[in-house]
């Protein structure tokens, strides 16, 4: 349901994003400070909707990538390019290392998980035994 502030919120969210379309913490802080300075009677409601929208956008922008071991920059860029090519919206990549994967990757994109790692193959194998 579009609220009465929807156009304002859209603008505020846009103000919070950097040149790559990614939400920037300092920019969000700027907006919050600005909102506080205006001190409108509907401050609370606007704030609430703004933060909800920011959380939502963050959720959609975040791509969590886990590698089983230290990975070279080239592999990371390749992965970034590959994902950006299929998904049109701006994405914020977060790379971490997860030793339990042993080798390979695990990508979490909103609520989709793409996984190809030694660990996932082994668990697939153990599943095929029990079923």
């Amino acid at each position, binding site marked *: 349901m579009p609220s009465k502030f929807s156009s304002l919120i859209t603008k505020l969210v846009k103000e919070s994003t950097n040149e790559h379309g990614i939400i920037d913490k300092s920019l969000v802080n700027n907006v919050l400070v600005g909102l506080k300075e205006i001190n409108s009677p509907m401050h609370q409601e606007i704030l609430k909707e703004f933060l909800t929208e920011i959380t939502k956008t963050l959720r959609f922008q975040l791509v969590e990538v886990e*590698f*089983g*071991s*230290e*990975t*070279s920059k*080239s*592999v990371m860029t*390749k*992965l970034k390019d*590959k*994902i950006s090519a*299929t*998904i049109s919206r701006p994405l914020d990549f977060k790379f971490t290392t997860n*030793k339990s994967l*042993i*080798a*390979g*990757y695990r*990508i979490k*994109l909103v609520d989709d998980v*793409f996984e*190809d*790692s*030694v*660990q996932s193959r*082994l*668990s697939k*194998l*153990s599943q095929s*035994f*029990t079923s």
Partner: protein
Amino acid sequence: MIILASLTDTAQGIVETFGIDWPMLIAQAINFLIVAFVIWKFAFKNILSTIKEREKQIADSLSNADKIKLELEETEKQQQETLQEASIAAQKTISSAQDQAKALIEAQKEDARKQAEEIILKAKLAMEQERDLILKEAREEIASLVVLTTSKVLSKDLSEDEKQHFSSRATEELNLNS
């Protein structure tokens, strides 16, 4: 005439001799007649009819006796027949009962046999199930052990280069639309 006169005299003589008194005689006769009538009317007639009845009864019972005799003979004959029939029926019942008893015994034997077979079958089935269960458990156990060991070994023994290689190859194969 003389003869006639003599006869009359003779008669008179007789009457006088026997002392017949005519009025007396007539009265006696009338008395007799009255008594005779009364007896006839009240005694003799009844006795006669009773006698007649008795005679008839005797005749009837005689004829009845004959009839009864005949009937008796017939009944005896029927009785004989019924007895015969009954004995045949009894024979039949006995034989059918025997047959049924035999069938029952057979059926019970069959039942017992079936039950025994069933018990054996059940035991066999239970054994098989147990075996399957143990096998399945063993399989799962071994499989999980294999997987566990493999992962331990791989995580230690894989060199960083090999891990990198795996990651980069996997990245190459990544297809988000799959």
